[in-house]
């Protein structure tokens, strides 16, 4: 098989990986200890040894279309066992960031969102200004359009009515999710093209792959295989299910608010504390905050479980702050007397406004931030099932590589 293969090394890409957490990648001498100690590694095409040499050579196309980097849950056993201190686990994390940035549409937004100097502008100022503009335009819009608040008694609706809230966030999130879909399609095609180049054929249907992946995500079963020194799984489970609960409640609240009255069912919004949805929301919120706090504490305590870049830190802090401001906002709702309103009202509106800014930062920038992993990792896991790489694969049979001197 003397087939010529033209490589396109990109030295600047290697430098980028070094800059965002993969600082030790050049120390690797390809012993493949990492690929063996990893409990998640594939049999047919183990990682992360091959990714390390691709990173050293700056083979960007191979790395950004490599599903294997997303099969890693960064327990960093590879890094602690690495004889050279090349920290493969941290290199894979950097590759994942670069993969998100590479596929994101528009690309420039992803590159900016992940730069520390743009955080104040993009994460706070832009959503702040947009939300303020929405408030200013509120009166004008209400005159033009037949928009009414379905529930007079909803306290925050006086400040930021539900129609505005839903309209505003739906518009921006939809816009960014259009970009996300484009990115994911490019990602899938990239992975498929890379496998075709290697002469590998998919072995399992996409539908079956989706089923397996969803099951795996819900159980976090691959995560459980990680032999973490500091367990990331429990914090991830809490944050994941906490977020999912809040997502479900938000969807339900919208249905309750707009859809049920249309069907003639009486809306119970705003929910009281004993409403099942409110209970789910509060438990979800607590899980989310606990998960984030545990993740932050674990990461601060020990570099052993992996170096964290600003890409990671921004996300986990944003998520935590959304949770905390959410609870404060909720507390104000019960603290403020709906009839005899006081100065407390303005404090409540302020914190709610901050909460909305943070939610914007989290949701609208999702496809460009670490939050994108929720989609990229899922798509990569589906592709990995589809391509058959997680299903055993062909093991090398000895003697396969007898090196005879010529």
């Amino acid at each position, binding site marked *: 098989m003397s087939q010529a293969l033209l490589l396109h090394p990109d030295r600047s890409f290697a430098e980028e990986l070094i800059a965002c957490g993969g600082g030790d990648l050049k120390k690797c*001498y*390809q*012993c*493949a*200890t990492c*690929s*063996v*100690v990893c409990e998640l*590694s*594939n*049999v*047919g*095409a*183990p990682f992360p*040894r*091959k990714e390390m040499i691709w990173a050293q050579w700056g083979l960007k196309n191979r790395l950004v279309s490599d599903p294997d980097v997303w099969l890693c849950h960064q327990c960093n056993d590879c890094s*602690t*066992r690495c*004889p*050279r*201190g090349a920290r493969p686990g941290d290199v894979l994390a950097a590759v994942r960031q670069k993969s998100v940035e590479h596929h994101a549409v528009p690309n420039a937004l992803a590159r900016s969102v992940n730069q520390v100097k743009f955080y104040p502008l993009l994460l706070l100022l832009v959503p702040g200004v947009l939300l303020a503009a929405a408030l200013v335009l509120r009166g004008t819009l209400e005159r033009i359009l037949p928009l009414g608040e379905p529930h007079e008694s909803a306290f925050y609706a006086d400040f930021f009515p539900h129609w505005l809230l839903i309209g505003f966030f739906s518009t921006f999130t939809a816009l960014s999710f259009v970009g996300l879909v484009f990115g994911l399609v490019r990602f899938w095609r990239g992975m498929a093209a890379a496998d075709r180049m290697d002469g590998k054929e998919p072995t399992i249907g996409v539908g079956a792959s989706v089923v397996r992946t969803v099951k795996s995500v819900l159980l976090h079963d691959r995560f459980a295989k990680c032999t973490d020194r500091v367990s990331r799984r429990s914090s991830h489970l809490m944050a994941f299910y906490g977020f999912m609960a809040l997502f479900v409640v938000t969807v339900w609240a919208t249905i309750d608010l707009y859809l049920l009255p249309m069907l003639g069912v009486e809306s119970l919004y705003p929910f009281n504390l004993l409403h099942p949805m409110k209970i789910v929301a509060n438990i979800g919120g607590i899980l989310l905050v606990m998960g984030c706090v545990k993740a932050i504490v674990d990461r601060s305590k020990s570099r052993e479980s992996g170096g964290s870049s600003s890409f990671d830190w921004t996300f986990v802090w944003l998520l935590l702050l959304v949770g905390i401001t959410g609870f404060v906002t909720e507390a104000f709702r019960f603290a403020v007397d709906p009839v005899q309103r006081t100065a407390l009202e303005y404090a409540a509106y302020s914190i709610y406004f901050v909460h909305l800014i943070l939610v914007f930062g989290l949701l609208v920038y999702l496809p460009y931030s670490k939050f994108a992993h929720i989609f990229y990792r899922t798509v990569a896991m589906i592709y990995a099932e589809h391509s058959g790489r997680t299903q055993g*694969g*062909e*093991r*090398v049979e*000895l*003697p*396969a*590589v*007898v*090196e*005879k*001197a010529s």
Partner: protein
Amino acid sequence: MSGTGRKGKILVIGGGISGISAAVEAGEAGQEVVLVERNPYVGGRVAQMHQYFPKLCPPSCGLEINLRRFKTSPRIRCLTLSEIQSISGKPGSYRAVIRRNPRFVNDKCTACGACADACPVERPDPYNFGMSSTKAAYLPCAMAYPMQFAIDGTVCTGAECGECVSACAYGAIELDMKPETIEVEVQAVIWATGWDPFDAGKIEGLGYGVHQNVITNMMMERLAAVDGPTGGRIQRPSDQKGIESIAFVQCAGSRDENYLKHCSGVCCLASLKQARYVREQYPDAEVYIFYIDLRTPGRLEDFLVATQEDAKFTLVKGKVAKITEDATGDLEVVAEDVLSGGQLRKKVDLVVLATGLAPANGRAVQIDGDLQTDEHGFFTIEQPMGGMFAVGCAKRPTDVATSVRDATGVVAKALHFCGE
């Protein structure tokens, strides 16, 4: 040899191949030599070897030649079972305090072995890495010098037993022998403290000390040696079974910042050599060497090429990071075959860890001034204080031939400090 005309005295610390060679050279150059050896015999690690690479001759050639020069030199004083306690003074004028531990056997010993026959106490034999045992009264090894028995004071029950005393026809046993302190004045000091096999039990994932059939390369030397625990038959420790397949794991602890950061330099050749031992005894055995990089510099490359002619011999680029054992004692080594990029699991009868060379100079010696070591713990070539020199593996991992040559060169340097 008439010497340089300048008369002095040199202290050599360590009686392995480097120390013996240095002592012989210094003695033949006309200097008085005091050689201090911790073990009850000289010969060090080389004495434990089955064969040298690349010529595959036994240590009796080479070591024995120098040992004969050593024994017959009138200027060498050899102190076995001895350790340096302190060295004070300055270049050209050092005073060394030596503690000589009791052998419990005096010079009347003829090595007849009657004491060992009578002795009721068994102990694991460190010379064979615990793969066999001796009595508490024992001959350290077949070619021991001095050719005398010794009694292991840590297990001997002492005078209340006394079986050996009545068995000895020569009055050679002195169970009340005490440690003594010897002081010597020397002009130069040569550190020939050599190396220790890296403790393979520290290496994560390879199961040494847990799986019985995972052994070290030094244990392999003893297994193959005719004076070894099996009379030279290479077999599995767990069930004495012969070898159908064997894996050598290179860089077991070496080139690894978690263990030994340095390349131990000799393990590639050592494993290639041991592969030949196995193939010689077992015409059908399969041999696998798992490596990161094969290091066979200079003419040693020829040895690699010649070994590769063997169709039963396979090289795999990829480090073994996991070894598991089944109920029968068979082992499975796991690696990534880097050249093809797939995971590889291989069942074998025996695994040899090519454990590296750790500097053996870490023992507490009080000295005036600094002894300089490099980042890996080996002595630097030139010590900052004149009159002190390191030789052989005390300085860097190296093979036997290089150590012997090094000894000659270092002695030439030490001679500058001898005489008036």
